[in-house]
């Protein structure tokens, strides 16, 4: 039977990709952030996942406003990165786990989640940068993926409660999967940041620490705020915490934190890295 080995959560700020590209990991600005990944590398070497279920959000690479799914699930044999328009390096492609994608899709729809399925899906920095951080210096990613894209662009966004429930339904689907994979759950984005408007540059350490302190042991606490209130507390783009909440649901009911790093600012964002294991 497949085993969920744990969950990895990380910010996915585009400029992290630029810093990796330029080899700035030891630069004083970047070091406190990148130092948070040594433990991630050790842990991944210990638990050796071969599949990753990734909750992230598209930033206008794959989805435009003509069609904007609330929850999209990839069912593609491969996923490619592409030019996002502002000079990021082009990232490696990912192999998909097609049978597992369709199993999850079938279980989710049976569970009354009306998802969108994608047999083609470009993936942007929100997926690539967490992998670059987790597995630097590999020629090919050591895991196959099943990606979820959650709408964090166009309101109304799904509620935090619904995202947690989606993740919990994914967990149930993984429990009924008959393969013998070692599965890591990944949630990307955040934490607090706001890029747009007169409040650009807003971050909120108190709210971020509230989220980090409750993620393992009481994720329902993160679902009490409406999306509107999360925007107030975390910033317009801080709503990417929805990806973390869904990923937390997919990990399973009991979890323990084994690693945390929090450092701001990374670009305009409060950067965070967390590892959880099933407890």
């Amino acid at each position: 039977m497949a085993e969920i080995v744990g969950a990895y959560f990380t910010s996915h700020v585009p400029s992290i990709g630029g810093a990796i590209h330029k080899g700035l990991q030891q630069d004083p600005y970047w070091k406190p952030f990148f130092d948070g990944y040594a433990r991630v590398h050790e842990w991944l070497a210990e638990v050796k996942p071969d599949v990753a279920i990734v909750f992230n959000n598209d930033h206008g690479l794959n989805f435009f406003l003509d069609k904007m799914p609330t929850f999209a699930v990839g069912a593609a044999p491969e996923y490619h990165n592409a030019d996002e328009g502002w000079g990021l390096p082009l990232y490696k492609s990912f192999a998909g786990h097609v049978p597992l994608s369709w199993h999850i899709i079938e279980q989710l729809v049976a569970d009354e989640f009306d998802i969108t399925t994608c047999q083609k899906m470009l993936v942007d920095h929100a997926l690539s940068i967490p992998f670059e951080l987790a597995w630097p210096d590999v020629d090919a990613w050591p895991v196959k993926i099943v990606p979820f894209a959650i709408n964090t662009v166009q309101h109304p966004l799904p509620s935090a409660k619904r995202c947690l429930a989606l993740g919990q339904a994914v967990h149930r689907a993984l429990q009924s999967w008959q393969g013998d994979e070692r599965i890591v759950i990944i949630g990307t984005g955040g934490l607090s940041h706001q890029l747009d408007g007169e409040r650009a540059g807003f971050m909120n350490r108190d709210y971020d620490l509230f989220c980090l302190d409750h993620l393992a042991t009481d994720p329902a606490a993160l679902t009490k705020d409406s999306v509107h209130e999360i925007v107030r507390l975390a910033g317009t783009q801080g709503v990417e915490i929805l990806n973390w909440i869904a990923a937390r649901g997919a990990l399973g009911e009991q979890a323990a934190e084994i690693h945390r790093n929090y450092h701001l600012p990374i670009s305009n964002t409060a950067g965070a890295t967390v590892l959880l294991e099933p407890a």
Partner: protein
Amino acid sequence: MPDAFPAQPAAGAGHALPPIPGTTLFDGDAAARGFALNAMCYSFNEAANRAAFLADEDAYCARFGLTAPQRKAIADRDVLGMIAAGGNIYYLAKLAGIFHLNVQDVGAMQTGQSVEAFKAMLQAQASGQTYEQAVEGSFAHG
């Protein structure tokens, strides 16, 4: 008889909720109003389209049928104007990329301060200041 369809707070009625200072939610109204502008910016995922915009901005904007406020905001490089005209920051970032502007540059443009002052405001939040304290310090020091 129980009400099968109990009244719910209107989902998406963002305008009925207490406003968030300095913040525009990109909701259905904005998405409808901003469609042409965002469609143009989405096209900038392709290098050829970025080059075409730089070669003839007027012609490129005309192709997408921008509204007058959208065209003016682009001409003025007025990010807040673009947002008021329905622009979404994820798409607008692709326009900013054409001019090699990063999110600190765009943050400075929107908050009316130098890029250095904007970065100092971000950094101040690292040393335990809240956003409000950091902003106050930023404007106190010009």
